């Protein structure tokens, strides 16, 4: 009936061997759980071994992405529930984001958080000078400081087919970016990159809506992003 012969008793492990193996397996599992799995999944690293292995960083990034996704969906729900606040959806999102991070990534990124709270102060004067004038063409310069792990999003409000030229550079390092747009239920990713010092080119709006960039500093040091835009858009806004 089967494709092999019966084993003899001697081929099988003894009961004592099996009990020993079970105990060893359970011990090994405990060690792996504490030194590898918890750091890599949740950023929980009681032994500091995960940090040495580079796994704690993975867990922290995962927690950060999860927290941001949650803050994002909460902010969007809040926007739906209270239509009058539509004009400033970014502020509550950023607040929730920072709070969640503070509780979840804790002391590990304390330094980063300290820098993070300063970042908006640096950027806001530039945003303030760049508020709406419904002229067909305009130009702006925006300076954003990003602490390690921090992200920022800036959008140009454009009509379908409108064109704007742009350039941005990263002072003090490199950044990940996602150049994309959304509006009227549509969304598109124009270009993405990791670890680049800058980008320049022309943005042609694929549809009416918000077109721009999300940047993330994955380096060890704070960086400053200097964005220059010029062209056919009505507003430049920082969302995150």
């Amino acid at each position, binding site marked *: *009936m*089967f*494709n*092999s012969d*019966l*084993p003899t008793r001697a*081929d*099988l*492990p003894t*009961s004592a*061997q*099996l009990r020993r*193996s*079970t105990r060893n*397996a359970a011990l090994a599992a405990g060690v792996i759980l504490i030194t*590898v799995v918890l750091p*890599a999944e949740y950023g929980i690293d009681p032994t500091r071994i995960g940090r040495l*292995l*580079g*796994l704690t*960083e*993975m867990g922290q*990034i*995962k927690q950060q*992405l*999860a927290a*941001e*996704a949650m803050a*994002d*969906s909460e*902010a*969007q729900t809040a*926007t*739906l529930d209270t239509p009058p606040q*539509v004009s400033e*959806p*970014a502020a509550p*999102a950023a607040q929730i984001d920072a709070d969640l991070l503070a509780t979840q990534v804790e002391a590990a990124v304390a330094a980063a958080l300290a820098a993070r709270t300063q970042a908006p102060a640096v950027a806001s004067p530039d945003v303030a000078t760049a508020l709406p004038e419904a002229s067909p063409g305009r130009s702006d310069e925006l300076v954003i400081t990003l602490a390690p792990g921090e992200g920022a*999003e800036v*959008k140009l409000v454009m009509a379908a087919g409108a064109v704007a030229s742009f350039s941005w550079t990263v002072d003090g390092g490199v950044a*990940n970016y*996602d150049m*994309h747009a*959304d*509006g*009227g*239920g*549509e*969304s598109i*990713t124009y270009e993405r990159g*990791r*670890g680049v010092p800058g980008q320049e080119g022309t943005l042609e709006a694929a549809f009416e*809506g*918000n077109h721009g960039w*999300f940047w*993330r500093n*994955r380096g060890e040091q704070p960086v400053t992003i200097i964005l220059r835009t010029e062209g056919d858009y009505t507003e430049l806004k920082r*969302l*995150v």
Partner: protein
Amino acid sequence: MIRKIAPLALAILALAGPAFAHAVAEGDKGYIQEVTGVNLIPFVYLGAKHMVTGYDHILFLFGVIFFLYRLKHIGIYVSLFALGHSTTLLLGVYFNIGINSYLIDAIIGLSVVYKALDNVGAFQRWFGFQPNTRAATLIFGFFHGLGLSTKIIEYDISPDGLVPNLLAFNVGVEIGQLSALAAILIVMGFWRRTESFWRHAYTANVVVMAAGFVLIGYQLTGWIVS
């Protein structure tokens, strides 16, 4: 993964209107898309995790060692499987050969059915001969590797540090396989010592075969509706 996330992201976007929204991947994929450069141990971990949590690979491995009792034999078969899937994993990602993930996963389901039929002696009974079990392990290993490479391509790993990270991922796959194997062997060790092993061995392989058929149906349906 991409296919599953995209409609969800679109649905959220449609609800949200003008709020910000760059489609962010989370979890392992999110991590991979955030990092650049050589990250050896994190990729070893991801390879091992993929194997240990990949029930299709585990089911096949379970079938392969079901009737192997000596460590020497287990070593030979597991090495053949590793040789097979490592080859296609590395070549598949390096040359960017992405096969439809539903179809490749359906073939992996077929490998589970094949091994279960092999174990209950169906090929000997039906065709009067025993197909080479080592060759089958190697060949299905190639397909399992293509399944792995297809998933890695979907992860969109940074080109910066790709080869070292890929090799690390492959090392992780082997570590994960050996860990899963150790756990299976301990449970099988207890089971084989009881008289019921021989009464239930046939049924157990039929159950494994059923699981393989479910995998095939699940993946083919996914292919049709996607």
